[in-house]
């Protein structure tokens, strides 16, 4: 057992903690009076020893860091847990030292500033999350520090309790990293799926662009032969040397060259080729817009354009089961947003809509559904509605649709993260809302609302 030393003046400081007078002033004063009367007698000394003993047991056994400091932020007493954190064998070794002796300069200065502010104003620090680096280890602490008042009512120091929340903090950071990773994975998954669809979208026009161009190229020699024979004929006419052979040759060439067919087909072939090229470039443009790198901050974005690009990029996902109608408000204001994340949301909703319609089309082959994407301004918000004529969401499933990994799709069809990502992007990153209206057998509408003037993001701790 450790011997407990009782030091008079310290004991008096300890036993006379004076809370700021505004708090239950009368009661506090009465307690102080009783205690004052007790000091000085032998019984009182015993009582003090007993009290101090209790305090010491408490300090030595609490895993939290407890420390007392004077007005210069120098340690006057610390417990064993804190000594261990500071790398000391004995708690007494800390007496007279300050944070600068144990922590990196920046950290020590920050603590000093906080504490001096407390000592000057008397305003306690409650539950401050702070990082605490000592030799070799980094801890996250939740610290509460309150002033200690001397008998004269002046602040004579402070007492602090810091709880080690490193494990919880790390778990939280891990969870955040995991969420970010999942969002990334979902993005990659949809990009992979999209890439195959886009390849298909490009391969089809490329097929007929190639066919048509080769057709024109292959037809040209025959056309040229006819033109050449006509040149010869024209020259002969000028020279009045037209022979039946020349005329016959031209006639044969015209007949052989399939001119009637070429007259009709070449202009159409060229027109369709240009259409095909336009289709490919439209897809490529949309891809460029869709894969917006999405910088660190929000930027003002034209959501209508973003929706058009996303619908084009995702065309292969919906075109076999549905038509897609865009009803976009032409006067829609620019919205501050993370464009990459917004595109991701629209993509997920369109793909979901196509799947929901696909289930209906499977039961009624030969039919097609409809996906409608609307935008409109509603006061301080912009509303995006994605409506499908699909199966609707069964009641039992409705509360779960935003949960991560919840899916009703077959294995390989989805990972159950699409709507989770929509929710995270709209609500957490944009301060908006996601709601839905659904009716079994009729379809579902998802409604995204994004604020036009989002409040500045709340400052979290560090990172």
């Amino acid at each position, binding site marked *: 057992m450790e011997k407990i030393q009782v030091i008079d003046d310290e004991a008096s400081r300890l036993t006379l903690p004076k809370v700021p007078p505004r708090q239950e002033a009368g009661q506090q004063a009465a307690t102080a009076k009783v205690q004052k009367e007790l000091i000085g007698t032998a019984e009182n000394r015993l009582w003090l020893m007993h009290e101090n003993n209790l305090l010491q047991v408490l300090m030595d056994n609490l895993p939290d860091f407890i420390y007392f400091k004077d007005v210069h932020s120098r340690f006057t007493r610390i417990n064993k847990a804190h000594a261990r954190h500071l790398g000391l064998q004995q708690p007494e070794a800390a007496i007279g030292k300050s944070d600068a002796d144990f922590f990196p300069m920046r950290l020590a200065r920050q603590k000093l500033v906080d504490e001096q502010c407390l000592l000057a104003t008397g305003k306690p620090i409650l539950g401050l999350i702070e990082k605490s680096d000592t030799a070799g280890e980094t801890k996250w602490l939740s610290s509460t520090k309150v002033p200690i008042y001397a008998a004269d009512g002046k602040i004579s120091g402070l007492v602090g309790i810091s709880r080690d929340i490193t494990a919880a903090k790390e778990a939280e950071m891990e969870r955040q990293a995991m969420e970010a990773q999942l969002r990334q994975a979902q993005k990659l998954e949809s990009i992979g799926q999209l*890439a*195959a669809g886009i*390849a*298909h979208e*490009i*391969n*089809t*026009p*490329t*097929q*007929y*662009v*190639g*066919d*048509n161009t*080769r*057709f024109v190229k*292959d037809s040209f020699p025959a056309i040229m032969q006819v033109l050449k024979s006509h040149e010869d004929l024209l020259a002969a006419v000028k020279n009045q040397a037209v022979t039946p052979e020349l005329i016959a040759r031209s006639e044969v060439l015209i007949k052989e060259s*399939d001119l009637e*067919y070429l007259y009709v*087909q070449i202009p*159409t*072939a060229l027109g*369709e080729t240009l*259409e*095909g090229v336009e289709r490919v470039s439209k897809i490529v443009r949309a891809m460029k817009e869709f894969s917006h790198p999405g910088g660190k901050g929000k930027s003002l974005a034209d959501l209508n354009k973003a929706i058009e690009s996303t619908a084009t990029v995702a065309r*292969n996902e919906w*075109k*076999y*089961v549905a038509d897609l109608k865009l009803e976009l408000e032409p006067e829609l204001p620019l919205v501050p947003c993370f464009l990459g994340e917004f595109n991701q949301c629209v993509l997920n909703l369109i793909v979901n809509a196509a799947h929901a319609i696909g289930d209906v089309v499977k039961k009624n*082959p*030969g039919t*097609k559904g409809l996906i409608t994407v609307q935008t409109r301004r509603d006061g301080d918000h912009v509303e995006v509605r994605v409506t499908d004529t699909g199966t609707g969401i069964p009641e039992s499933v409705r509360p779960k649709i935003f949960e991560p990994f919840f899916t009703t799709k077959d294995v390989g069809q989805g990972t159950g993260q699409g709507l989770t990502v929509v929710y995270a992007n709209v609500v957490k990153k944009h301060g908006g809302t996601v709601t839905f209206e659904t009716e079994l057998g009729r379809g579902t509408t998802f409604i995204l609302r994004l604020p036009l003037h989002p409040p500045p993001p709340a400052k979290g701790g560090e990172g």
Partner: protein
Amino acid sequence: MKTLLFVDDDPKVLQGLQRQLRTMRNEWNMNFVEGGPQALAFMARQPVDVIVTDMMMPGMDGSQLLSEVSRRHPQTVRIVLSGQAEREAVLRLVGPAHQYLSKPCEADELRNAIIRTFSLCDLLGNEHLKNLTARIKSLPTLPSAQTRLTGELQKDAPSLERISEIVARDIGLTAKIMQLVNSAFFGLPRQISDPQEAVAYLGLTTVRALALSAEIFSQFDPRLCQLFSLDILERHSWATGLLARRMAHLERQNNQMMDQCFLAGLLHDVGQLVLATGLHEEYSQVILQARQKKQPVCQVEQELFGASHADVGAYLLGLWGLPNVIVEAVAWHHQPSRSVAAQFSQVMAVHVADVLIHERQQVYTEAPPPGLAMAYLEKTGLAGRIETWRAASLENDEVY
């Protein structure tokens, strides 16, 4: 005139094809429809020699359409022309399609694929055999091969090498994997003839998906044609493949030639498997007669069917789009003189290896071996090599 039917949900693709193939209009009767149901309606009215279809279409997709076509009109050659990019897609087509072409497809590539199927049609005169062969989605395998393959695939770390060997020892699996890897879908710059390379190229995921698909893995039922033994056929084929490759090596041929000799040797009797499973009663008759009258099997086949297993096998491999040299070597392995080659060739390797292996395996087959085409060997100046090759056939007893 041959009748073709093109199916695509995009009318622009159809018009492009129509213009591009216009030069063939005097030889081909070409028809264009915009969907599966229209295609089936068309085929109900008139027979179609070749159907070329898109894969992704609303309502009925290409895979469903071709499955239906193979059921209703088995004689029609089924080709897919698709712009799909993912590998999984091709697995759905492994059964119903004979060949796959990728969009964008060069006009010559499409034209040649079609012309090639027409020349194949001329190869096999017997309509009944044609239907029988065109209907085949996969060839039966020995249960033991199946067990070994699935066993290997289920291991934590399956060995590509062991899987390749299991595949290479099995005629049906090898043929199927060669069909897949040589299809335009994979867009390989050269044709692959080495089963190990094919397996490595396709990768474990695809091979596993193939192995687990019921379309690919049908078990051989020995009760149907009791005189026919797939086990003996597979051993004979393996030995023939090895010897053909050894001969190519002895003749200082390059690696590609050696691979092709092996593959052609392995697959040269694939027609027997087709006949024994498709026409089991008639084929039992063939085997019986060959044994009783001491006639070579191919001679009896010719007599009873008007075509031999060489014709049937070549027709199947041609439909499946295997390299031409392999198809020719299989087609002419009894009559190498039909080849225009004036030196050592795949046809010669398979012909000679087949005869030499038969000499050694006669105990099992009971039918006499077909004779060596000595006149052709003399003409190419290789008759003097026979004894070297025969010695090579005696080197390795393990394979018999």
